């Protein structure tokens, strides 16, 4: 009895605990910090419980309102959802600890950070659980508004401009997605992922294809794939450090997850031409993002452009995965998880350096290593994962992609994957190198609370450890994965 009840109860808690906490934080602003911290720990705990449950007992379902599809909305937690939920929980609880210290002296930001951040967390969890295309639209909007409001919390003109551009792009992306949902609903008479997937091969031809294209286009815009990345660096670069960490590590992953979910579970995992096109954009993103990251003079913008490049890797995997199957999908997912952890660690480290020196100009980071050894260690470890050096999570992801690329004889992609790693090494060492140079002159420096240093280090260490846990995570990702037979059906459909 208990195991049967367990998964739906955890699913309920995963969405409702952060939601209830967000309302409480809004009602009781003076207690927001302690409420937020308790809620973060609780949310992480129930999320890990759900993840373990999914790993042990397989895909979990909940019928919301007790109604089955097509009338009702379903929650569905399979391995892919569980892995991203767990990553979100780990980053979320660490960023919460960090934010408690970061916003200590800023009463305004403190009061509004907690409800907004907990609502963002609610939106992420709701998005990863939902198996309903229209409900996913609502979670996307929730996620977008929370992210925009948090970006604006930076307060200055740059943060406001970044937030407004982000809002316009986010709403445009959601509308494009919604247009696709409207066409799919009228093609299939349902918005349930399972039912739509079953109907897609027989759906009216141009309608379902245009629907898929509109949804993909909206999600690509939200994921900031080159050349739609223009909005990302200004927003991620001007937000407060814990917000930047959440935006880069978690928010762009959510739209990528949804894109992957559509590709695999709704469209059946085929689509050769679309995959090649997106792969090409991914290649451009890796090169363009890395080169621009190298040219930045400010640390947070460097890290933001690095996100543009790393998103490129996720899309570069698509043609390999469509042609070669499981290993490349696992590689892309591994890169997404590793990037989430490592990029959060990098932005938190940048926040420490910014707090310490009062600026984030890379050329003036001299001697930071002596004062903030933990922060610099965190940045370097995160850098190891971003570069893709063993034994990090980033290494496993790239290694799986390289293996697939070699097996398929795609040597051009091999070169790009390796070149992206070399460029990443160059921009990571640019930062670390400046931090090691002795200080030219003493400046007025502020202390950094130890909690902020340790949070960054914890996430960076997690990005490394992720590389050693492939035997644990690979089976989790396979839980509830779409059967490969669907792929051939889709291939026949899309070729016509």
């Amino acid at each position, binding site marked *: 009895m208990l195991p049967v009840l367990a998964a739906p109860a955890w699913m309920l808690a995963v969405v409702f605990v952060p939601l209830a906490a967000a309302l409480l934080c809004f009602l009781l602003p003076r207690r927001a910090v302690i409420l937020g911290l308790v809620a973060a720990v609780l949310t992480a705990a129930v999320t890990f419980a759900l993840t373990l449950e999914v790993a042990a007992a397989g895909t979990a379902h909940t019928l919301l309102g007790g109604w089955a599809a097509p009338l009702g909305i379903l929650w569905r937690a399979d391995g892919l959802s569980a892995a991203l939920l767990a990553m979100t929980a780990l980053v979320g609880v660490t960023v919460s600890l960090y934010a408690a210290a970061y916003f200590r002296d800023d009463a305004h930001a403190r009061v509004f950070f907690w409800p907004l951040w907990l609502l963002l967390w609610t939106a992420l969890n709701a998005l990863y659980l939902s198996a309903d295309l*229209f409900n996913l639209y*609502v979670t996307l*909007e929730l996620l977008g*508004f929370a992210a*925009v*409001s948090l970006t*604006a919390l930076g307060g*200055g*003109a*740059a943060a*406001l*401009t970044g*937030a*407004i*551009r982000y*809002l*316009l792009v986010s*709403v*445009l992306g959601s*509308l494009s997605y*919604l*247009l696709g949902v*409207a*066409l799919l*609903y*009228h093609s299939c008479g349902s918005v349930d992922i399972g039912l739509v997937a079953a109907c897609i091969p027989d759906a009216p031809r141009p309608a379902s294809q245009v629907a898929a294209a509109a949804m993909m286009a909206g999600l690509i815009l939200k994921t900031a794939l080159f050349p739609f990345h*223009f909005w990302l*660096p*200004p927003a991620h*670069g*001007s937000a407060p450090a814990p917000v930047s960490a959440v935006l880069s590590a978690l928010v762009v992953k959510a739209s990528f997850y949804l894109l992957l979910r559509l590709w695999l579970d709704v469209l059946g995992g085929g689509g050769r031409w679309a995959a090649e096109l997106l792969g090409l954009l991914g290649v451009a993103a890796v090169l363009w993002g890395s080169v621009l990251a190298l040219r930045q003079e400010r640390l947070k*913008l460097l890290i933001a452009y690095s996100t543009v490049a790393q998103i490129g890797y996720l899309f570069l995997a698509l043609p390999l995965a469509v042609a070669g199957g499981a290993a490349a999908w696992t590689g892309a997912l591994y890169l997404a998880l590793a990037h989430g952890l490592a990029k959060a660690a990098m932005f938190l480290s940048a926040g420490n350096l910014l707090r310490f020196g009062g600026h984030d100009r890379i050329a003036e980071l001299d001697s930071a290593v002596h004062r903030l050894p933990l922060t610099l260690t965190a940045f370097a470890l995160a850098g190891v994962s971003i570069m893709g050096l063993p034994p990090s999570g980033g290494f496993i992801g790239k290694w799986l992609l390289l293996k697939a690329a070699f097996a398929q004889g795609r040597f051009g992609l091999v070169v790009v994957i390796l070149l992206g790693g070399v460029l990443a090494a160059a921009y990571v060492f640019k930062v670390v190198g400046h931090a090691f140079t002795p200080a030219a002159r003493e400046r007025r420096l502020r202390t950094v609370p130890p909690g902020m240093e340790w949070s960054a280090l914890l996430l960076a260490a997690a990005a490394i450890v992720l590389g050693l846990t492939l035997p644990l995570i690979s089976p989790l990702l396979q839980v509830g994965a779409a059967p490969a037979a669907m792929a051939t059906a889709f291939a026949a459909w899309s070729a016509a």
Partner: protein
Amino acid sequence: MTQAVFWALIGMALVVLGLYALIVHAHLLRKVLALNIMSSGVFLVFIGLARRTPDADAPMAADPVPQAMVLTGIVVAVAATGLALALIVRLRALTGRTTLGDDMGD
């Protein structure tokens, strides 16, 4: 052409019209208007195509699910508009600008 297809086509035209204005106009209030018109277009596609029921003239035969979804969409749109306008007003108070300007970053 049926009534359903007719209104869905008008909806698509509104989507494209809004998208054009969103890209071309610099004033942020105009971009907000453009997004609102785009979303009206999407709603029109949603509701228009719901009129494809076999006995379309019976009012109760209308599919209620797209209507409920569009109601949700209308509320989301007004929330987005409210948030966007607050940000724009604040930007104007802070910098005197009502456009995004070209200074990305910094």
